[in-house]
């Protein structure tokens, strides 16, 4: 111990940083801020350090080349001792990092921590969020499997919607006219050098500001932030009744960070690494590309937006959202901090959380995508064929063979793009069914050119049988009257 102290003294006599460190560590924080609600920032920093460390570990083996990347991941997964575990920790660490950063941000909003004088801290935080997401996206590309390849195609297609300079933006994104070796190389440079470098810089500034301005105090309803009085009030909270950060507050951060690292390792050990999925050969088109968890809401939104507003929303939406986040502390820099007196903040956050949650959940079963093997996978349930006429059975064959089932489910299996057809006869009359099949509409292709009249007749006669036994099929009341009139003109006068 004595020797260690001597070494430290020798170093400190030259570095002269002991005092600064001590001052920083023991800086006073408001008593109530030493709370379990204030642990997310430090947890994000801990995960970032974990990511840097595991990232360097992976770089010992990983080959950032479109020709080798996928193989080097297989090698990591199956040959290198514990390579799978480091990949898993890095992958799960990424998910945890996005989650913790988002929670940290929600807490900051709910506690009004972005208000005066911490506007710049918030601003840096917004950039840190964007860079965390950029790391998650570029990290997905590092995996260079089929999902990564087609994910890049999606990115390029979005970039291609930029007016006037779309072509140039696509080229800069891909590093050339198509997705190829140069694409992976540039994403590697961003994932490993550019963005982490920026992250380290911005995190340092973010932390420096936390030290300079002090951690946000626990918001009390009625304690109003004013530019003229706040600093004095805060000084009172820290210097009169405050406690030193080390050791009185830091232990919660340490416990939580340890718990997070532990959770990441448990997830990594239990669920293993992410992919890689299929080999990145574009000619293997039997693939259903899907983004990673934290981009699934976007994937869902892209399917659900009406086509007319898709491009404007894709281009203007991010500008509006990021602009709002940047401007937030400038139009709401004073006033109440407590969530109990800020219903708009609470409602906005809740709505956002619910919306993103629902979109993410929908991406799980993606009802908008045709089930590519729906038509060949499952047979028509036997009870739908019992006692049917030959024509109706022929119709069920047409139904299968023409891939109707890729979009329509029957007996609980098939696509969800169109409505389930188990009770379609109760909703549509014979004529309506024919028209829908032949002309399409309502987001259904027209099959008029692709089905012979005989096939349409058979198909529709099968569809007309699709109703519960105790429920009559839909009929056109007017038509019944007209046909009866034609058959027997005198009979209509009877009613």
């Amino acid at each position: 111990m004595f020797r260690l102290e001597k070494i430290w003294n020798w170093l400190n006599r030259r570095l002269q940083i002991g005092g600064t460190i001590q001052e920083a560590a023991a800086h006073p924080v408001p008593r109530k801020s030493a709370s379990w609600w204030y642990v997310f920032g430090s947890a994000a920093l801990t995960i970032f350090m974990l990511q840097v460390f595991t990232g360097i570990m992976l770089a010992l083996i990983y080959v950032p080349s479109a020709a080798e990347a996928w193989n080097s991941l297989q090698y990591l997964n199956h040959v290198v001792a514990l390579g799978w575990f480091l990949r898993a920790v890095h992958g799960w660490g990424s998910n945890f990092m996005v989650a913790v950063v988002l929670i940290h941000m929600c807490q900051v909003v709910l506690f009004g921590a972005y208000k005066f004088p911490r506007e710049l801290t918030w601003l840096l935080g917004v950039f840190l969020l964007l860079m965390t997401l950029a790391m998650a996206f570029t990290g997905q590309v590092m995996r260079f499997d089929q999902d990564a390849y087609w994910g890049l195609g999606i990115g390029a297609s979005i970039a291609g919607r930029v007016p006037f300079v779309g072509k140039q933006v696509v080229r800069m994104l891909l590093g050339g006219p198509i997705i190829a070796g140069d694409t992976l190389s540039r994403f590697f440079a961003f994932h490993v050098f550019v963005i982490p470098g920026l992250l380290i810089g911005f995190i340092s500034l973010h932390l420096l500001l936390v030290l300079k301005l002090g951690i946000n105090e626990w918001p009390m309803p009625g304690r109003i932030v004013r530019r003229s009085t706040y600093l004095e009030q805060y000084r009172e909270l820290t210097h009169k009744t405050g406690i030193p950060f080390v050791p009185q507050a830091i232990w919660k951060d340490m416990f939580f960070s340890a718990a997070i690292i532990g959770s990441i390792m448990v997830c990594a050990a239990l669920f293993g690494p992410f992919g890689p999925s299929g080999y990145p050969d574009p000619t293997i088109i039997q693939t259903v590309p899907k983004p990673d968890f934290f981009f699934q809401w976007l994937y869902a939104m892209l399917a659900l937006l009406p086509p007319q507003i898709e491009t404007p929303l894709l281009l203007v939406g991010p500008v509006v959202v990021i602009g709002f986040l940047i401007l937030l502390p400038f139009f709401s820099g004073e006033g109440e901090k407590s969530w109990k007196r800020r219903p708009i903040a609470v409602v906005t956050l809740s709505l956002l959380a619910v919306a993103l949650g629902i979109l993410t959940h929908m991406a799980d079963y993606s009802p908008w995508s045709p089930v590519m093997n729906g038509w060949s996978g499952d047979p028509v349930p036997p009870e739908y064929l019992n006692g049917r006429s030959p024509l109706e059975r022929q119709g069920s064959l047409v139904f299968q063979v023409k891939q109707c089932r890729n979009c329509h489910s029957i007996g609980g299996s098939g696509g969800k793009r169109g409505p389930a057809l188990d009770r379609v006869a109760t909703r549509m009359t014979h004529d309506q069914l024919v028209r829908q099949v032949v002309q399409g509409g309502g987001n259904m292709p027209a099959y008029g050119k692709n089905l012979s009249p005989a096939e349409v007749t058979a198909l529709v006669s099968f569809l007309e049988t699709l109703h519960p036994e105790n429920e009559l099929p839909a009929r056109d009341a007017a038509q019944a009257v007209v046909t009866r009139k034609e058959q027997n003109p005198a009979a209509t006068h009877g009613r």
Partner: protein
Amino acid sequence: MSDPPVTPEERGDRAEVSRRDLFAKIGLLVNGLAVAILATPVVGYLLSPILRGDRGQYKRWISLGELDEFPEGQTRLAKFENPVTGVSDGDTDHIPCWVRRIQGEQFQVFAINCAHLGCPVRWFAQSKLFMCPCHGGVYYQDGSRASGPPPRGLFQYEYRIEGGRLQIKAGQLPTLSTTASLNRRRSECSG
């Protein structure tokens, strides 16, 4: 009014400070110049994805195979090598496309990429539709949009028939602001 007399020391000091000042400024200028000179090639290097590409190899016609490989009235998957390759492309140079032979020498060659967001569309011969697995875009056999989110029909490659072989011009990922064939406009002008 006349200035108070200045001692030589004062004058000398001032002169020295302003001399250093001047050198500091020149130093800044020299460094700025060096950075600017360095920046020019760096910017050129960074912009190389935009600046290079439309020349040379991309003008080449790429063969998709003999005409007999594409029966009339059918749509088949064809594969080709991207005309320009990098050192680390691996198999990303293998590009698929859908070839529809309408009849005789009338063809349509579709890019694999959905016009919505670039996912690979699949052909269903029975219902004569292209379907996209990502967001449910559907196209008719002639590539026109049938349903779903795509804002337009499938992208097409320029093609020609030369010596009994079907050839296309390729080389670019088609998006709403890029074509599947790289120098399409130029060849349209000349042809």
